């Protein structure tokens, strides 16, 4: 434990009536790193994000953000955080520039700082020549860029991204990845929840995989792959009956398997792998192994 932590969660529990959305979560985001929070829908990612801004209050456990203990000192923590919500909540009848200006006020920038901060955010979002465009006239990708830039107006030390690229074209997604990568390279701490595996693999220094409200694995993407799936996977295609056979054989031999719909991927290979297409194991393999195949 060397680097100070931007986020530290210990044994955090959040219940909604009889449903336990977060069930004893431990989570660390060391300062200056990007941590990906991976998990299927309903794993508790969004609830975790809401607790970090005190928009949900934990029933049990300890939470601290940038050294401030939540929920008591959450306002101080929020002042130093930028939040990119999953659902677009820009003011659609305002212009790009006005949206940024509103946040310069909400995040308490001094009068002299406001204008340069808005300019800087316009540049980050690459929307300088769209400053006077109303938000409802922007494309989906531009809106997302603005949503991210809006969270950066006050130069936050920590940025919380909740599913930053959900529902976007691959082109737009890559554009946003570049933006997020730039943040990290500038030393901002980032916590990003996502269920796009590739996103976490590319951007995150470390990944925490959540399932049923708990962290089931954490580490650098490559380490997790080696630890849980092994270096390579064998992909066997065939009829459903054949696939079931392969699965049974592999399990009998102590190997792990996962279905990919049209094939069975055999993982954690030792000497006796079945014949099939070899490929490097990936984070998706780990994800499915750890969070289960059934969709809740």
């Amino acid at each position, binding site marked *: 434990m060397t680097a100070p932590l931007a986020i530290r969660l210990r044994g955090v529990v959040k219940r909604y009536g009889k449903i336990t959305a977060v069930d004893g979560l431990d989570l660390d985001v060391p300062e200056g790193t990007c941590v990906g929070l991976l998990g299927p829908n309903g794993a508790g990612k969004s609830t975790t994000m809401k607790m970090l*801004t005190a928009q949900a*209050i934990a029933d049990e456990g300890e939470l601290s953000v940038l050294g401030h203990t939540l929920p008591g000192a959450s306002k101080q923590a929020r*002042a130093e955080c930028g*939040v990119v919500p999953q659902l677009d*909540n820009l003011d*659609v009848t305002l212009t790009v520039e006005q949206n940024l200006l509103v946040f310069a006020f*909400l995040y308490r920038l001094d009068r002299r700082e406001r204008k340069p901060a808005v300019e800087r955010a316009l540049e980050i979002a690459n929307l300088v020549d769209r400053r006077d465009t109303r938000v409802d006239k922007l494309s989906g990708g531009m809106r997302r860029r603005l949503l991210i830039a809006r969270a950066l107006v006050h130069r936050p030390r920590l940025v919380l991204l909740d599913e930053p690229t959900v529902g976007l074209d691959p082109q737009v997604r890559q554009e946003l990845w570049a933006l997020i990568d730039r943040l990290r390279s500038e030393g901002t701490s980032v916590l990003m929840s996502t269920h796009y595996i590739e996103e976490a693999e590319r951007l995150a220094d470390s990944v925490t995989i959540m399932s049923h409200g708990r962290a089931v694995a954490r580490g650098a993407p490559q380490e997790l792959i080696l630890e849980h799936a092994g270096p390579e996977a064998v992909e066997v295609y065939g009829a459903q009956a054949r696939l079931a056979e392969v699965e049974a054989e592999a399990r009998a031999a102590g190997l792990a398997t996962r279905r990919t719909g049209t094939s069975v991927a055999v993982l954690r290979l030792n000497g006796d792998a079945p014949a099939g297409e070899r490929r490097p194991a990936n984070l998706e393999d780990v994800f499915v192994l750890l969070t289960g195949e059934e969709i809740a």
Partner: protein
Amino acid sequence: MRSQVGRLERPALLGVLMREVINFSSYWRSTTFSATVEPTIYLLAFGFGFGSLVSTVGGYDYVEFVGTGTVATAVLFSSAFAAMFGTFIKYKFQRTYDAILAAPVDTEELATAEAAWIATRAGVYGCVPMLVAIVFGLDPAWGMLLVPFFGFVAGFGWACFGILASAIATSIENFNYIISAGLTPLFLVAGTFFPLDQLPEWLQTVAQLNPLYHLVQLVRHAAFGFEGWSDVGHVAVLIAFGLLMWRLAIWRLEQRLID
């Protein structure tokens, strides 16, 4: 640098207020249009319609009576309705409040600043019927300078009432109950269009609980002469109403916004 009013921090209030001010720049024309045209129509319809049947009411010219009475109506409409629909849309559909509460702003500051903004607008637009009535022959009086202040105090209470209503409502259709069973009777039993002493006694007693009635009285007295302690009493009722609604609105909105 920390400047606080109790738990309310000034920079947080300012942030929420500025959001409204900047938004207002995109829709002030339509708001001003309806705030001006509506009371003019009321005055024309009631003033000349009824006015041709009844020349004086309670000792006043009917146009003067209605012109001052509709100030209260304008305050009610521009505060309670704006708060009900505005709040509901902002938290349910536009998710604006999620964004604001992720910033260093608490629910208490959010509700207070929103209500203060709506109250300011109500105080200003509430004067429009009076100005229109002046054009139609109401004599200007120094007391009228206090009308924006009365409008603000009452508007703050109604705005908080609207925020409370929207935090209780589960769908926008729920507002029908509040409007039909709550606001419409209050609006009619306030002495706006006819004096209350025509009503049965029990209804007159009930009307004493109607904040709108107290606002109507204050506006009339501002135009025709204050009546000492009874006006202090009217102001006190409006302030008490505002404080009660303010705390209720914050309490309920917090339940709604924070899990």
